[in-house]
């Protein structure tokens, strides 16, 4: 079928008033759960699965998809306002977004996130409509060696996440790698660092670690400072972007969209890399890298666009091949099956109205989200004027409920407290939590793909160099290291890693 006719069919499904309503309910719910720290899209979709029984297949899937990408919008809100990222992608947004909020520029940060996400969502949806099947095929060329090489590149480039000492940043990444090892080894079944606690077999919960080292640690730090305790942000300098702001975000949004769209297609963890990769790219390309970590608007625009683009394109493997790229997509598989449709390569031909309807609804959902979120900015910023003593206990409470709701695992709640204290100690020592989270997220992936590549190659390390994609990626990683150590570029590097004190 011709693409225009297909899209026409899609829009006729998505523009059905009842489906617009489901789409709206989905993105609204997604925004709300994205804002509540801890309760993510996974828990929400799981809770709503039974309700979708009674809906039409298109309505149900449009709503559930809406919850997922809606949560990507909402997740940045708490990251910016109170330094509480709900998932790995918004952890990057918290770095500069929260600094902007502290300077009274929360409105601008939120507007940047919303506009960047909208643009990225639109582009990614078009990409999905035009190139989904070939992109999915291309992504299948990524095996374990390619993912390993990609993550190595990501880790090396992302050292730019730190704005303090490079030694401390490396230390934090290693600590994160170690924390990521907690749990049952997937290859041998051996428990590692679990101390006999069965609840730790599945590893530490990302949300607990993120809420602890970012949110709770920040609360503890604020409590020691008597002066800033009453109201977190005293003055709010306007809400809307100035002309200068617009000029500054255009390029990062474009680059973030491209990076995110491409990485999102990779089912083996590409979407996790997208916001980290975009942040590193922006910092490298910036003329004023010293602003990063101190409220650079580019540090919000790039990662937020990348993250939303990846959220949309991560539907590609699911819709065209029936392969779930991450836990939320696995839930979508469940939703398809409950509706009597087995997701797989045949969905596009057997259920064209459903396939194109979902794609068209994503664009409509992005429009609804931007209409919903821009007016809300004023309201969110007002939230900052809530007295500290009322706001923070509420945040911690919500975070605990949210983390517990995912797996009903009490250790996820203990982890918040533990990592809150760890995070506070790290802040006191001048170490930053972002590289720690990067190591924590990418470490297990790095190990998984390295060991799988070695098992499949039967112990031959040359596999990484014999396969063209992995060899290229590793070459780029080597290049990144060489550039960093070349004497001529030392001067520039000093700018990148300005010492804090």
């Amino acid at each position, binding site marked *: 079928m011709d693409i225009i006719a297909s899209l026409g069919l899609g829009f006729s499904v998505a523009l059905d008033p009842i489906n617009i309503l489901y789409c709206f309910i989905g993105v609204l719910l997604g925004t709300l759960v994205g804002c509540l720290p801890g309760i993510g899209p*996974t828990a929400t*979709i*799981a809770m709503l*699965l*039974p309700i979708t*029984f009674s809906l039409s297949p298109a309505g149900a899937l449009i709503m559930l998809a809406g919850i997922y990408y809606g949560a990507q919008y909402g997740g940045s809100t708490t990251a910016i306002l109170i330094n509480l990222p709900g998932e790995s992608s918004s952890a990057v947004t918290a770095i500069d977004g929260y600094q902007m909020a502290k300077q009274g520029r929360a409105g601008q940060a939120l507007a940047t996130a919303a506009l960047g996400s909208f643009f990225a969502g639109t582009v990614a949806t078009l990409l999905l409509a035009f190139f989904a099947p070939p992109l999915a095929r291309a992504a*299948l*060329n*990524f*095996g*374990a060696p390619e993912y390993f090489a990609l993550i190595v590149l990501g880790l090396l480039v992302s050292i730019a996440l730190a704005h303090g000492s490079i030694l401390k940043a490396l230390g934090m990444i290693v600590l994160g790698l170690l924390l990521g090892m907690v749990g*049952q080894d*997937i*290859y*041998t*079944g*051996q*428990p590692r660092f679990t101390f*006999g606690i*069965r*609840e730790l*077999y*599945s590893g530490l919960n990302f949300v607990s670690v993120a809420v602890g080292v970012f949110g709770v640690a920040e609360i503890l730090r604020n409590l020691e400072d008597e002066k800033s305790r009453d109201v977190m942000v005293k003055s709010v300098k306007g809400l809307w972007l100035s002309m200068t702001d617009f000029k500054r975000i255009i390029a990062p949004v474009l680059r973030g969209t491209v990076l995110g769209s491409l990485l999102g297609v990779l*089912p*083996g963890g590409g979407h996790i890399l997208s916001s980290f990769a975009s942040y590193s790219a922006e910092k490298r390309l910036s003329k004023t890298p010293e602003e990063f970590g101190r409220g650079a608007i580019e540090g919000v625009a790039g990662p937020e666009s990348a993250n939303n683009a990846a959220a949309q394109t991560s539907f590609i*493997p699911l819709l065209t*091949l*029936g*392969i*779930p790229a991450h*836990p939320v*997509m*696995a*839930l*979508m*598989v*469940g*939703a398809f*099956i*409950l509706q*009597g449709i*087995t*997701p*797989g*390569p*045949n969905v596009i031909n057997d259920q064209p109205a459903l396939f194109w309807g979902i794609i068209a609804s994503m664009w409509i959902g992005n429009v609804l989200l931007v209409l919903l979120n821009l007016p809300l900015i004023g309201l969110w910023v007002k939230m900052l004027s809530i007295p500290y003593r009322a706001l923070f206990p509420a945040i911690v409470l919500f975070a605990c409920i949210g983390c517990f709701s995912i*797996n*009903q*695992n009490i250790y996820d709640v203990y982890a918040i407290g533990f990592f809150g204290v760890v995070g506070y100690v790290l802040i006191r020592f001048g170490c930053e939590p972002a590289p720690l989270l990067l190591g924590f997220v990418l470490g297990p992936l790095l190990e*998984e793909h390295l060991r*799988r590549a070695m*098992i*499949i190659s*039967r112990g031959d390390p040359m596999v990484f160099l014999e396969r063209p994609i992995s060899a290229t990626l590793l070459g780029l990683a080597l290049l990144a290291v060489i550039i960093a150590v070349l004497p001529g570029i030392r001067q520039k590097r000093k700018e990148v890693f300005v010492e804090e004190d």
Partner: protein
Amino acid sequence: MKKTAITLAAGALLASMAFAGSAFAQDYPTKPITVVVPFSAGGPTDTVARLVAEVMSQDLGQQVVVQNVGGAGGTLGAGQVAVAQNDGYTLLLHHIGMSTAPTLYRSLPYDPTTDFAPIGLITSVPMTLVARKDFEPNTMAELLDYVKANGEDITYAHAGIGSASQLCGMLFMNAVDAQMTTVPYQGSGPAMTDIIGGQVDLICDQTTNTTSQIQAGEVKAYGVTSPERLGNLPDLATTAEGGLELEIGVWHGLYAPAGTDAAIIERLEAALQVALANETVISRFAELGTVPVTAEEATPAALTETLTSQIELWKGVIEAAGVYAD
């Protein structure tokens, strides 16, 4: 004086509790029932649970809520139900892993045979032996020869320690008497991705995950592990037809904590049988490539029988393979 009052009060309390107890079994259920699924939402077991729970809710007149308690190969969720109140409001829906856990986990904090009151079997999902589409052998006979000849040069993917695909792989290698290189993944999704992408050779996985890929020609299928051919894959021969002695099904059962009132078990058994005879359940199960068990099998006796014999079977297989999860 005071003592008497306390005794009286205690007596009254006991009496009212006893009364509440009997009335409670008759009126059961008076509040929503939680079915713990020890895996994450959206997976095959979760889907089975949600389809059955929906119809059981209608029959019982109370919501049957599915709660996902994933982790530690299903032993976390099962462990929670083992120590839950045995009032009939917390149940467990678990699959074949119920019978492998006692051998895989040497420090299991519960005993599947004594800590639960079985309610009934639900379904047995068949498995299919599939390979990347450019894998050399074309028929089951060729595959068996190929595996015998090439052994460890063949990569066998599975969905992780204790997963159905790992169990099927052990049985397969026992039957062929050859060792392949096993490549563990975290779940069926990534494993299938690498089969479709041609990164690994072979997997034996539930029809839930393979049917659409077989139909679309994305993978090469050799056989199905059920006694008879499947309705939605009529051209696919059974393993027995292909000359391979390998029969395995991912059987699912419903359990209550041990000591649950017999009247309550009976009520749940009846509701389960109603659900398994339901049109929607039958047709959705068919799309998953499986059928509900008969009413005679959806009984405590049948589930007890299956559980004990499967524990024996897997004890032998797992100990021979020397695979443990702790």
